Protein backbone atom coordinates (compact mmCIF):
# COMPACT_ATOMS: atom_id res chain seq x y z
CA UNK A 1 0.00 0.00 0.00
CA UNK A 2 1.17 3.42 -0.80
CA UNK A 3 1.09 4.75 2.65
CA UNK A 4 3.80 6.68 4.25
CA UNK A 5 4.67 5.32 7.57
CA UNK A 6 5.58 8.18 9.79
CA UNK A 7 5.37 6.35 13.03
CA UNK A 8 8.40 5.70 15.03
CA UNK A 9 8.40 2.15 13.86
CA UNK A 10 8.66 -1.04 15.66
CA UNK A 11 5.34 -0.86 17.36
CA UNK A 12 3.11 -1.69 14.42
CA UNK A 13 3.92 -5.01 13.22
CA UNK A 14 2.42 -5.12 9.79
CA UNK A 15 -0.85 -3.65 11.14
CA UNK A 16 -2.68 -0.90 9.22
CA UNK A 17 -2.34 2.56 10.61
CA UNK A 18 -5.76 4.10 11.14
CA UNK A 19 -6.11 7.77 11.55
CA UNK A 20 -8.47 8.62 14.37
CA UNK A 21 -11.96 9.20 12.95
CA UNK A 22 -13.30 12.53 14.09
CA UNK A 23 -17.04 12.71 14.54
CA UNK A 24 -18.77 14.59 11.73
CA UNK A 25 -21.41 15.90 14.06
CA UNK A 26 -21.22 19.60 14.66
CA UNK A 27 -22.96 21.34 17.47
CA UNK A 28 -25.78 23.14 15.72
CA UNK A 29 -27.24 24.86 18.77
CA UNK A 30 -25.66 28.22 18.12
CA UNK A 31 -26.56 28.16 14.46
CA UNK A 32 -30.18 27.30 15.16
CA UNK A 33 -30.32 30.04 17.78
CA UNK A 34 -29.11 32.56 15.30
CA UNK A 35 -31.45 31.36 12.57
CA UNK A 36 -34.49 31.66 14.81
CA UNK A 37 -33.39 35.05 16.01
CA UNK A 38 -33.20 36.27 12.44
CA UNK A 39 -36.54 34.68 11.57
CA UNK A 40 -38.15 36.49 14.46
CA UNK A 41 -36.58 39.75 13.36
CA UNK A 42 -37.77 39.43 9.78
CA UNK A 43 -41.23 38.31 10.85
CA UNK A 44 -41.72 41.39 12.97
CA UNK A 45 -40.36 43.84 10.46
CA UNK A 46 -42.18 42.71 7.36
CA UNK A 47 -45.64 43.61 6.25
CA UNK A 48 -47.25 40.45 5.12
CA UNK A 49 -50.68 41.84 4.45
CA UNK A 50 -50.44 44.00 1.42
CA UNK A 51 -52.82 46.94 1.36
CA UNK A 52 -56.15 46.23 -0.25
CA UNK A 53 -57.99 48.90 -2.10
CA UNK A 54 -61.23 49.77 -3.76
CA UNK A 55 -61.15 51.42 -7.11
CA UNK A 56 -62.83 54.72 -7.81
CA UNK A 57 -63.19 56.34 -11.17
CA UNK A 58 -64.29 59.93 -11.35
CA UNK A 59 -65.86 61.23 -14.56
CA UNK A 60 -63.56 63.17 -16.83
CA UNK A 61 -64.95 66.67 -16.42
CA UNK A 62 -62.59 68.27 -18.91
CA UNK A 63 -64.27 66.84 -21.98
CA UNK A 64 -67.76 67.96 -22.80
CA UNK A 65 -69.39 64.95 -24.30
CA UNK A 66 -72.91 64.91 -25.54
CA UNK A 67 -74.97 63.44 -22.80
CA UNK A 68 -78.04 61.39 -23.30
CA UNK A 69 -81.08 62.45 -21.35
CA UNK A 70 -82.18 59.94 -18.77
CA UNK A 71 -85.46 59.69 -16.97
CA UNK A 72 -85.28 61.42 -13.61
CA UNK A 73 -87.35 58.61 -12.15
CA UNK A 74 -84.39 56.30 -12.64
CA UNK A 75 -82.10 58.26 -10.38
CA UNK A 76 -81.64 57.76 -6.74
CA UNK A 77 -79.83 60.51 -4.88
CA UNK A 78 -78.01 59.73 -1.66
CA UNK A 79 -76.98 62.64 0.54
CA UNK A 80 -74.38 61.82 3.13
CA UNK A 81 -74.91 63.77 6.32
CA UNK A 82 -73.27 63.95 9.69
CA UNK A 83 -73.60 61.48 12.58
CA UNK A 84 -73.25 58.53 10.17
CA UNK A 85 -76.69 59.15 8.73
CA UNK A 86 -77.77 59.65 5.19
CA UNK A 87 -80.84 60.72 3.29
CA UNK A 88 -82.04 59.48 -0.04
CA UNK A 89 -84.76 60.28 -2.48
CA UNK A 90 -85.86 59.03 -5.87
CA UNK A 91 -86.28 61.22 -8.91
CA UNK A 92 -86.10 64.98 -8.89
CA UNK A 93 -85.22 66.97 -5.78
CA UNK A 94 -88.08 68.41 -3.80
CA UNK A 95 -90.74 66.23 -5.39
CA UNK A 96 -90.45 63.25 -3.16
CA UNK A 97 -89.59 63.76 0.49
CA UNK A 98 -86.19 62.32 1.35
CA UNK A 99 -85.90 59.36 3.68
CA UNK A 100 -83.42 59.38 6.54
CA UNK A 101 -81.49 56.14 6.62
CA UNK A 102 -78.39 54.55 8.01
CA UNK A 103 -75.51 52.69 6.43
CA UNK A 104 -75.36 48.95 6.42
CA UNK A 105 -77.42 45.96 5.41
CA UNK A 106 -80.75 47.12 6.81
CA UNK A 107 -80.40 50.73 5.81
CA UNK A 108 -78.84 51.82 2.58
CA UNK A 109 -78.42 48.35 1.13
CA UNK A 110 -82.06 47.48 1.55
CA UNK A 111 -83.11 50.80 0.04
CA UNK A 112 -80.78 50.31 -2.91
CA UNK A 113 -82.08 46.84 -3.64
CA UNK A 114 -85.75 47.82 -3.29
CA UNK A 115 -85.43 50.96 -5.38
CA UNK A 116 -83.31 49.13 -7.94
CA UNK A 117 -85.97 46.47 -8.33
CA UNK A 118 -88.67 49.07 -8.59
CA UNK A 119 -86.83 50.98 -11.29
CA UNK A 120 -86.15 47.76 -13.16
CA UNK A 121 -89.82 46.82 -13.13
CA UNK A 122 -91.17 50.23 -14.15
CA UNK A 123 -88.78 50.95 -17.01
CA UNK A 124 -88.20 49.15 -20.28
CA UNK A 125 -85.03 47.19 -20.80
CA UNK A 126 -82.17 47.75 -21.53
CA UNK A 127 -82.28 51.18 -19.89
CA UNK A 128 -83.81 49.99 -16.69
CA UNK A 129 -80.92 50.07 -14.29
CA UNK A 130 -80.87 52.63 -11.55
CA UNK A 131 -78.49 55.57 -11.60
CA UNK A 132 -77.18 56.48 -8.16
CA UNK A 133 -75.84 59.89 -7.29
CA UNK A 134 -73.79 60.10 -4.14
CA UNK A 135 -73.66 63.58 -2.69
CA UNK A 136 -71.40 63.87 0.32
CA UNK A 137 -72.03 66.91 2.49
CA UNK A 138 -69.26 68.81 4.21
CA UNK A 139 -70.00 67.08 7.49
CA UNK A 140 -69.83 63.54 6.20
CA UNK A 141 -66.67 61.57 6.80
CA UNK A 142 -64.41 59.69 4.48
CA UNK A 143 -65.65 56.47 6.02
CA UNK A 144 -69.23 57.41 5.04
CA UNK A 145 -68.14 57.90 1.45
CA UNK A 146 -66.30 54.59 1.38
CA UNK A 147 -69.28 52.82 2.98
CA UNK A 148 -71.62 54.28 0.39
CA UNK A 149 -69.31 53.24 -2.44
CA UNK A 150 -68.98 49.84 -0.86
CA UNK A 151 -72.76 49.41 -0.89
CA UNK A 152 -72.68 50.20 -4.62
CA UNK A 153 -70.26 47.32 -5.07
CA UNK A 154 -72.25 44.99 -2.87
CA UNK A 155 -75.52 45.68 -4.64
CA UNK A 156 -73.74 45.68 -8.02
CA UNK A 157 -75.00 49.07 -9.14
CA UNK A 158 -74.14 49.62 -12.77
CA UNK A 159 -74.01 53.35 -12.67
CA UNK A 160 -73.04 55.61 -9.81
CA UNK A 161 -71.15 58.83 -9.37
CA UNK A 162 -69.98 61.21 -6.71
CA UNK A 163 -71.62 64.57 -7.31
CA UNK A 164 -71.36 67.93 -5.62
CA UNK A 165 -74.22 68.56 -3.22
CA UNK A 166 -76.67 71.37 -4.00
CA UNK A 167 -77.86 74.04 -1.52
CA UNK A 168 -81.39 72.61 -1.73
CA UNK A 169 -80.15 69.23 -0.59
CA UNK A 170 -78.02 70.78 2.13
CA UNK A 171 -81.20 72.44 3.34
CA UNK A 172 -82.95 69.09 3.52
CA UNK A 173 -80.11 67.68 5.58
CA UNK A 174 -80.16 70.70 7.86
CA UNK A 175 -83.87 70.28 8.44
CA UNK A 176 -83.14 66.83 9.85
CA UNK A 177 -80.21 68.07 11.88
CA UNK A 178 -77.74 66.15 9.76
CA UNK A 179 -75.55 69.05 8.74
Amino acid at each position, binding site marked *: MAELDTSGGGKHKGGKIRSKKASTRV*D*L*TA*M*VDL*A*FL*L*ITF*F*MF*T*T*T*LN*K*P*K*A*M*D*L*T*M*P*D*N*SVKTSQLPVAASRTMTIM*LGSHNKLMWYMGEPGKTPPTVDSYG*PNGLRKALIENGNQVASTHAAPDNFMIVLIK*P*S*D*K*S*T*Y*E*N*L*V*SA*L*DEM*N*ITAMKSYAIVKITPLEEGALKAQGLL
Partner: protein
Amino acid sequence: MPRVKVARKSTAIDMTAMCDVAFLLLTFFILTAKPKIDDPSKAEVPASIKEIQVPDENVMTIAIGKQTANKTNPLFLSFSGTDVRTETLKAMGEIYKVSFTPAEINRFSNTELFGVPMNQMKNFLSTPTNDVAKFPQSGIPADTTNNNELFNWIINARKAQVGLHGKIYAIAIKGDRLQEYPVVNTVISVLEHQKQFKFDLITTLRKAAKK
Protein backbone atom coordinates in the same frame (compact mmCIF):
# COMPACT_ATOMS: atom_id res chain seq x y z
CA MET B 1 -27.64 -5.07 46.94
CA PRO B 2 -26.67 -4.03 43.51
CA ARG B 3 -27.71 -0.52 42.58
CA VAL B 4 -30.00 -0.14 39.61
CA LYS B 5 -28.10 1.88 37.15
CA VAL B 6 -30.14 4.12 34.93
CA ALA B 7 -28.52 4.36 31.62
CA ARG B 8 -27.51 7.96 31.03
CA LYS B 9 -28.79 9.24 27.76
CA SER B 10 -27.03 11.97 25.92
CA THR B 11 -28.86 15.28 25.97
CA ALA B 12 -27.58 16.23 22.57
CA ILE B 13 -30.34 16.07 19.99
CA ASP B 14 -29.93 15.92 16.29
CA MET B 15 -30.64 19.46 15.24
CA THR B 16 -30.07 19.04 11.55
CA ALA B 17 -33.74 19.01 10.64
CA MET B 18 -34.58 21.95 12.87
CA CYS B 19 -31.70 23.87 11.41
CA ASP B 20 -32.91 23.10 7.90
CA VAL B 21 -36.39 24.35 8.64
CA ALA B 22 -35.13 27.42 10.40
CA PHE B 23 -32.99 28.42 7.48
CA LEU B 24 -35.71 27.66 4.99
CA LEU B 25 -38.05 30.00 6.83
CA LEU B 26 -35.32 32.56 7.19
CA THR B 27 -34.72 32.52 3.45
CA PHE B 28 -38.43 32.93 2.83
CA PHE B 29 -38.72 35.90 5.14
CA ILE B 30 -35.62 37.56 3.77
CA LEU B 31 -36.80 37.22 0.21
CA THR B 32 -40.32 38.45 0.91
CA ALA B 33 -39.23 41.17 3.30
CA LYS B 34 -40.42 44.62 2.61
CA PRO B 35 -39.61 46.83 5.51
CA LYS B 36 -42.52 48.47 7.23
CA ILE B 37 -42.38 52.17 6.76
CA ASP B 38 -43.23 54.29 9.68
CA ASP B 39 -46.42 56.09 8.80
CA PRO B 40 -46.57 59.53 10.37
CA SER B 41 -50.03 60.14 8.93
CA LYS B 42 -51.54 57.69 11.45
CA ALA B 43 -54.43 57.20 9.07
CA GLU B 44 -56.93 54.58 10.14
CA VAL B 45 -58.44 53.33 6.92
CA PRO B 46 -62.12 52.46 6.53
CA ALA B 47 -63.34 49.00 5.59
CA SER B 48 -64.76 47.76 2.32
CA ILE B 49 -65.44 44.46 0.63
CA LYS B 50 -63.24 45.10 -2.38
CA GLU B 51 -59.91 43.37 -2.49
CA ILE B 52 -57.96 45.00 -5.24
CA GLN B 53 -54.24 44.69 -4.71
CA VAL B 54 -52.39 47.94 -4.57
CA PRO B 55 -49.30 47.50 -6.75
CA ASP B 56 -46.00 47.16 -4.91
CA GLU B 57 -44.07 49.52 -7.04
CA ASN B 58 -44.81 52.37 -9.38
CA VAL B 59 -47.40 53.70 -7.00
CA MET B 60 -48.03 57.11 -5.54
CA THR B 61 -49.92 57.30 -2.29
CA ILE B 62 -51.61 60.35 -0.90
CA ALA B 63 -52.30 59.89 2.77
CA ILE B 64 -54.88 62.00 4.56
CA GLY B 65 -54.03 61.94 8.22
CA LYS B 66 -56.19 62.45 11.25
CA GLN B 67 -57.43 65.95 11.77
CA THR B 68 -55.22 67.63 14.33
CA ALA B 69 -56.35 69.67 17.30
CA ASN B 70 -55.92 72.97 15.49
CA LYS B 71 -58.12 71.86 12.59
CA THR B 72 -55.37 71.32 10.08
CA ASN B 73 -55.58 68.33 7.82
CA PRO B 74 -52.22 66.71 7.35
CA LEU B 75 -51.68 65.50 3.81
CA PHE B 76 -48.77 63.22 3.14
CA LEU B 77 -47.29 62.06 -0.10
CA SER B 78 -45.29 58.99 -0.91
CA PHE B 79 -44.02 57.84 -4.25
CA SER B 80 -41.67 55.08 -5.22
CA GLY B 81 -38.23 55.41 -6.73
CA THR B 82 -35.24 57.16 -5.15
CA ASP B 83 -34.21 58.68 -8.47
CA VAL B 84 -37.71 60.02 -9.02
CA ARG B 85 -37.68 61.61 -5.58
CA THR B 86 -34.35 63.27 -6.34
CA GLU B 87 -35.64 64.76 -9.56
CA THR B 88 -38.89 65.86 -7.98
CA LEU B 89 -37.20 67.65 -5.12
CA LYS B 90 -34.95 69.52 -7.55
CA ALA B 91 -37.96 70.58 -9.62
CA MET B 92 -39.86 71.66 -6.51
CA GLY B 93 -36.81 73.60 -5.31
CA GLU B 94 -36.84 75.57 -8.54
CA ILE B 95 -40.53 76.39 -8.29
CA TYR B 96 -40.42 77.47 -4.65
CA LYS B 97 -36.93 79.01 -4.83
CA VAL B 98 -35.34 76.73 -2.29
CA SER B 99 -31.91 75.33 -2.98
CA PHE B 100 -31.01 72.01 -1.47
CA THR B 101 -27.57 70.65 -0.71
CA PRO B 102 -26.59 67.26 -2.13
CA ALA B 103 -26.87 65.83 1.39
CA GLU B 104 -30.43 67.07 1.71
CA ILE B 105 -31.35 65.73 -1.71
CA ASN B 106 -29.87 62.38 -0.78
CA ARG B 107 -31.81 62.39 2.44
CA PHE B 108 -35.04 63.19 0.62
CA SER B 109 -34.46 60.41 -1.89
CA ASN B 110 -34.47 57.98 1.03
CA THR B 111 -37.59 59.40 2.64
CA GLU B 112 -40.54 57.19 1.84
CA LEU B 113 -43.30 59.40 3.12
CA PHE B 114 -43.34 63.08 3.91
CA GLY B 115 -45.82 65.77 4.76
CA VAL B 116 -44.11 69.09 5.24
CA PRO B 117 -44.68 72.40 3.48
CA MET B 118 -41.87 73.61 1.25
CA ASN B 119 -40.87 76.35 3.68
CA GLN B 120 -40.09 73.71 6.30
CA MET B 121 -38.55 71.22 3.92
CA LYS B 122 -34.96 72.34 4.57
CA ASN B 123 -35.47 71.99 8.31
CA PHE B 124 -37.07 68.62 7.88
CA LEU B 125 -34.23 67.31 5.76
CA SER B 126 -31.56 68.58 8.13
CA THR B 127 -32.98 67.04 11.29
CA PRO B 128 -30.89 64.10 12.47
CA THR B 129 -32.25 60.73 11.39
CA ASN B 130 -33.09 59.75 14.95
CA ASP B 131 -35.27 62.80 15.52
CA VAL B 132 -37.25 62.59 12.29
CA ALA B 133 -40.09 60.72 13.97
CA LYS B 134 -40.53 63.65 16.34
CA PHE B 135 -40.49 66.29 13.61
CA PRO B 136 -43.96 67.84 13.52
CA GLN B 137 -45.08 67.17 9.98
CA SER B 138 -47.92 69.58 9.44
CA GLY B 139 -48.86 68.28 6.02
CA ILE B 140 -48.50 69.45 2.45
CA PRO B 141 -50.65 72.53 1.79
CA ALA B 142 -53.39 71.96 -0.76
CA ASP B 143 -56.51 73.62 -2.07
CA THR B 144 -58.84 73.11 -5.00
CA THR B 145 -56.93 75.33 -7.44
CA ASN B 146 -54.26 74.05 -9.74
CA ASN B 147 -51.39 75.91 -8.16
CA ASN B 148 -50.66 74.57 -4.73
CA GLU B 149 -47.88 72.53 -3.22
CA LEU B 150 -49.63 69.20 -3.37
CA PHE B 151 -50.51 69.78 -7.02
CA ASN B 152 -46.92 70.65 -7.86
CA TRP B 153 -45.48 67.72 -5.94
CA ILE B 154 -47.75 65.30 -7.72
CA ILE B 155 -47.27 66.71 -11.18
CA ASN B 156 -43.50 66.90 -10.84
CA ALA B 157 -43.27 63.40 -9.47
CA ARG B 158 -45.37 62.09 -12.31
CA LYS B 159 -43.25 63.97 -14.85
CA ALA B 160 -40.07 62.57 -13.30
CA GLN B 161 -41.49 59.05 -13.30
CA VAL B 162 -42.41 59.27 -16.96
CA GLY B 163 -39.07 60.88 -17.82
CA LEU B 164 -36.91 58.38 -15.93
CA HIS B 165 -38.83 55.16 -16.25
CA GLY B 166 -41.48 55.82 -18.89
CA LYS B 167 -44.18 54.66 -16.50
CA ILE B 168 -47.30 56.26 -15.17
CA TYR B 169 -47.93 56.11 -11.46
CA ALA B 170 -50.95 54.30 -10.11
CA ILE B 171 -52.53 56.62 -7.58
CA ALA B 172 -53.74 55.44 -4.22
CA ILE B 173 -55.51 57.45 -1.56
CA LYS B 174 -55.18 56.42 2.04
CA GLY B 175 -57.57 58.39 4.14
CA ASP B 176 -58.38 58.41 7.80
CA ARG B 177 -61.88 57.14 8.30
CA LEU B 178 -63.05 60.03 10.43
CA GLN B 179 -61.65 62.68 8.17
CA GLU B 180 -64.32 65.01 6.83
CA TYR B 181 -65.29 64.98 3.19
CA PRO B 182 -64.05 68.46 2.11
CA VAL B 183 -60.45 67.34 2.58
CA VAL B 184 -61.05 64.25 0.48
CA ASN B 185 -62.71 66.48 -2.09
CA THR B 186 -59.64 68.71 -2.16
CA VAL B 187 -57.36 65.78 -2.86
CA ILE B 188 -59.65 64.42 -5.55
CA SER B 189 -59.94 67.79 -7.25
CA VAL B 190 -56.16 68.25 -7.19
CA LEU B 191 -55.93 64.95 -9.05
CA GLU B 192 -58.76 65.88 -11.38
CA HIS B 193 -56.90 69.04 -12.35
CA GLN B 194 -54.15 66.74 -13.59
CA LYS B 195 -56.61 64.61 -15.50
CA GLN B 196 -56.19 61.70 -13.11
CA PHE B 197 -59.57 60.10 -12.70
CA LYS B 198 -58.78 56.62 -11.50
CA PHE B 199 -57.63 55.98 -7.97
CA ASP B 200 -57.41 53.18 -5.49
CA LEU B 201 -58.88 53.97 -2.12
CA ILE B 202 -56.89 51.95 0.38
CA THR B 203 -59.22 50.09 2.70
CA THR B 204 -59.05 47.21 5.10
CA LEU B 205 -61.08 44.17 4.40
CA ARG B 206 -64.50 44.36 5.98
CA LYS B 207 -65.20 41.62 8.48
CA ALA B 208 -68.22 39.41 7.98
CA ALA B 209 -71.43 41.34 8.41
CA LYS B 210 -72.68 41.60 11.96
CA LYS B 211 -76.11 40.21 12.47
